[in-house]
């Protein structure tokens, strides 16, 4: 399947500070984009805008050429976004959490597949206990198991390497490469430059002089 997410002229201002202005980018099937920049440069904000979660002060998003109104479903149906918080409820087991995420996309799935996904990420043991008893890294792995299960082609991942040990990080790099090679797309906000086996373009935020400083 071919798709394209385009952003045009995005402006972002937070607490009176201009983070970026007139930002444009395009992500299509088979693309991998690394968004880098120092803390507070607007990486997370940009990802939230691309997910349609945060309305930009100016500019627009287009999915496959169609301009999206705020939070449009055409984009969300093809999107897997992972933010700073893993989205794993403490009182539910990893299996239940994964089942809910599948159901939100209208998929029933089955426990065998979910268990396999968890085992894939080294969590076979903890699959049936409430996630509150797992460590931060393990909860992060539960969230990453969604990558194994999902059918969404576009992944927006905000600092996915946080709290992961070396093995899990390697596995994630492997999965990201495989997803891009299979015709998916990944946008990644990270300090860590992942070792991918596919071509990766880069977008550096907060390094170029800010437009309003130039204008005065």
């Amino acid at each position, binding site marked *: 399947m071919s798709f394209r997410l385009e952003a045009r002229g995005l402006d972002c201002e937070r607490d009176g500070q201009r983070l970026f202005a007139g930002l444009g980018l395009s992500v299509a099937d088979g693309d991998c984009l690394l968004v880098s920049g120092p803390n507070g440069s607007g990486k997370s904000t940009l990802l939230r805008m691309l997910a349609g979660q945060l309305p930009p002060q100016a500019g627009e998003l287009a999915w496959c050429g169609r301009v999206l109104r705020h939070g449009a479903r*055409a984009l*969300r149906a093809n999107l897997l*976004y992972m933010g700073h918080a893993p989205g794993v*409820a403490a*009182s539910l087991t990893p299996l239940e959490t994964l089942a809910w995420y599948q*159901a*939100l*996309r*209208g998929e029933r799935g089955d426990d065998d597949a979910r268990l396999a996904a968890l085992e894939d990420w080294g969590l076979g043991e903890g699959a049936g206990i409430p996630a509150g008893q797992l460590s931060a890294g393990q909860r992060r792995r539960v969230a990453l198991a969604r990558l194994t299960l999902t059918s969404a082609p576009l992944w927006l991942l905000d600092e996915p390497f946080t709290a992961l040990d070396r093995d899990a990080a390697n596995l994630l790099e492997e999965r990201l490469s495989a997803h891009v090679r299979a015709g998916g797309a990944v946008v990644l906000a990270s300090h860590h430059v992942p070792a991918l086996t596919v071509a990766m373009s880069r977008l550096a935020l907060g390094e170029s002089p800010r437009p309003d400083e130039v204008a005065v």
Partner: protein
Amino acid sequence: MGAGDADTGLATAWAATLGRELRRAGRRRGETLAPLTFFALVIALFPLGLTVQPERLAGLAPGLLWVTALLATLLSLEALFRDDHADGSLEQMLLAPQPLAALVLAKVLAHWLVGGLPLALLAPLLGVLLALPAGSYLPLAVSLALGSASLSLIGAIGAALTVGLARGGLLLSVLVLPLFVPVLIFGAGAAQAALVGGAFGAHLALLGALLALALLLAPWAIAAALRIAING
């Protein structure tokens, strides 16, 4: 692509969300039962603070039961979206390719099933403590069942608006208590009317009308509020 995207799966997603909420409530029994305990405890305090004369207590009982049930509901509202917001599940729910108003309705329904409905069932028992005559048990329970559903819906708007705020709890009560007034008036009115042997049908009909209106409008408001609050 296109039409095939946004179509199916709402029933699956809705049922799964309702099931998830009920399961979560069942796992955190302490938190789920706290409003009921509060309800029973406060009702037990009134005779100690007011009077133990049965006829005077009975006269006050509908109002006391209703106001306390309303406060118990208010207490439980703060937790409605709090944990989901903290652990990131709420963010994911907002990104689901389903109408958010429908998913939110599943959450509110669960809130009522484990909160308002048990309150309504418990109220006649506590009515005994307040010397409420047996004839008004049924109208009391029905008015609380109908009314607490409206309270859950209206209160969820406030809970959504304050979900990301540090001291949201206090603000939540300022936001929603004024909006609770009509429900309180019709609900306590029904129980009061039943107590004095009057017709309470009109009160219940009005409560039902309020609930219908809340069902129609509140889910959209809750969804819009969540989309605002998620960006804190």
